[in-house]
Structure formats: structure tokens, C-alpha cells
């Protein structure tokens, strides 16, 4: 219980942030394992209700990148 892994949901736009994350992976750059990426076709699809539900279910943070 003491060392709980944090979970951060990252809503990433397919055309920019997701591609950047992909590129970072391709270049073998390290980023924190707490980040869980959810690809969106556009951050314009960012949905308050979904992000709220993620937090209700216990996500520790939500980032929107695009």
C-alpha cells in the first residue's frame, strides 16, 4: 500500500502529441511509466465527462496534449 504506482492518463492528439510520443519511443527516449496514453483523433474530442470519470475511478492526474 505504501508504494502505490501513480497513474496519469494522457489524452494525446493523433497528429501531434501522440506522434511526438511515438517518435520519443522510436528514439528510445525514456519517459515516466506513470503516463498512460490514450490516443484521440484530435484533442477537440477531449471530453469533460470522460476525464472526470477517469479521476473518479482513481486516476491521479489527467493531461491533455495536442
Amino acid at each position: 500500500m505504501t508504494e502505490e504506482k501513480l497513474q496519469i492518463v494522457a489524452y494525446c492528439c493523433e497528429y501531434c502529441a501522440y506522434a511526438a510520443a511515438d517518435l520519443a519511443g522510436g528514439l528510445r527516449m525514456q519517459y515516466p511509466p506513470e503516463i498512460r496514453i490514450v490516443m484521440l483523433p484530435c484533442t477537440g474530442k477531449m471530453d469533460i465527462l470522460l476525464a472526470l470519470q477517469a479521476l473518479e475511478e482513481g486516476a491521479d492526474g489527467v493531461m491533455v496534449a495536442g
Partner: protein
Amino acid sequence: MIVAEQKSLEEIKSLVGNAEKVLVVGCGTCVTVCFAGGAREAAIVSASLRMSSKLDGNPKEVTDVTVQRQCEWEYLDEIAAQVEAVDVVLSLGCGIGVQAIAEHFPNTWVVPGLNTTFLGLPTEQGTWVERCAACGDCLLGLTGGICPIARCSKSLLNGPCGGSIDGHCEIDDEIPCGWQLIYDRLNSKGKLDMLMDIQPPKNWSTSRDGGPRKIVREDLRLNEKEESGS
């Protein structure tokens, strides 16, 4: 449409009070299209109440459901079982929806989640403006389709007051003068002469002055046999 606005979460929480089981009821008609009380808003309010009550250390059981229209018995019948299973119903309908729930489910405690604000329309995405005050004796035929009751701050019937400045109403620069709008409209239609007729004082008995209003249509009523269900 009927335009409404959500109450603050703080006020909603105090209205819900100590109730442990809450049903948030959305309405699929007017308040859905003004983004105050549709299915999405019901889900958001319900999640907010669950989260906030849990953080307060008193987790509530909050669920949500949305009916096509809260202001018709038939649609309320569909949620009877859910309504009976909770301590309080938080209605995200307009004031009519809240009252319909109270009347249809006499054993239920129902509270409003919205402030019903006016009859109006969205002039652009995200902006709603009042257009009609439901006066019961429509004058739009005299004014080129612009309501002097709802759109003139003083509900004047015979042209503008002395405070009309450059098309703005004297009570607020942001508000277009209703009578300037009427004048411009009649002018563009070549009907300015209509303004020469003096309107007598309006008969307000068709409005709220006569108490709660009622319409009965004999041609639409069920006959006695049908009413008794045979």
C-alpha cells in the same frame, strides 16, 4: 425553447442535504439543447456529487437517468422504479419538470438542479437570449416580429423611451434597444406607418395577472368512457 442554467454544485449539495441515495434526472428536450440538464450534464452532475461526497467523507450513492421530457406523465412512468428507490430526486429539468416529478410521485422528495431562466434562443453557439415573456396576447404582428414585451426593458408599447441611445437600451449598453430594433425592422419593410397607430394599454389579464393560466381544448379531451380506460 426554455432556457435554464445549472445551479452551483454547492447549492445542489445543500439541496440534496443528508440524503444517501440520489437520482439525478435529466430531460431530453429544452434543457438538453441549452446544455443545462441533458444526459451528459446529468452524468457530470452525478459524478461530481459522488466524488465530492466521497471527499467529504460521506459517500452518497448517486445515479442518473434521462427521460425524453420531464413534463409529460408518460415519460415519468418509465422511471417510477428508480424514483422510488432513492431518498431524493435531483431534477435537471426546467421548473415544470421538477413540479411534474413532485406531482407524479407524491411520496418522493424532489429538488431543482437548475435555475429556469427564460424563453429564448441561442443567438450564437454558447449564447442564449430571451425572446418571449409568454404574455398570452401576442403583439408580434404589430411590431414586425420583434417582441416589445420581452425585448424592451420596460415593455413599452408605443415606441422607445427617452433613454434609447445609438441603438442601445439605457439600462445597459450591451442590450440593444428593443424599440430601435422594431423601428429598423418596420423601416426596412416600408411599414413605418404602422407605428402611427397608438396602442391602448395592454390587457395583462392574459398574462400572469390572472393567476395560473390554463388552456382546455374540448376537441382534444378524452370522453368519459376513454378516461375511465374502457
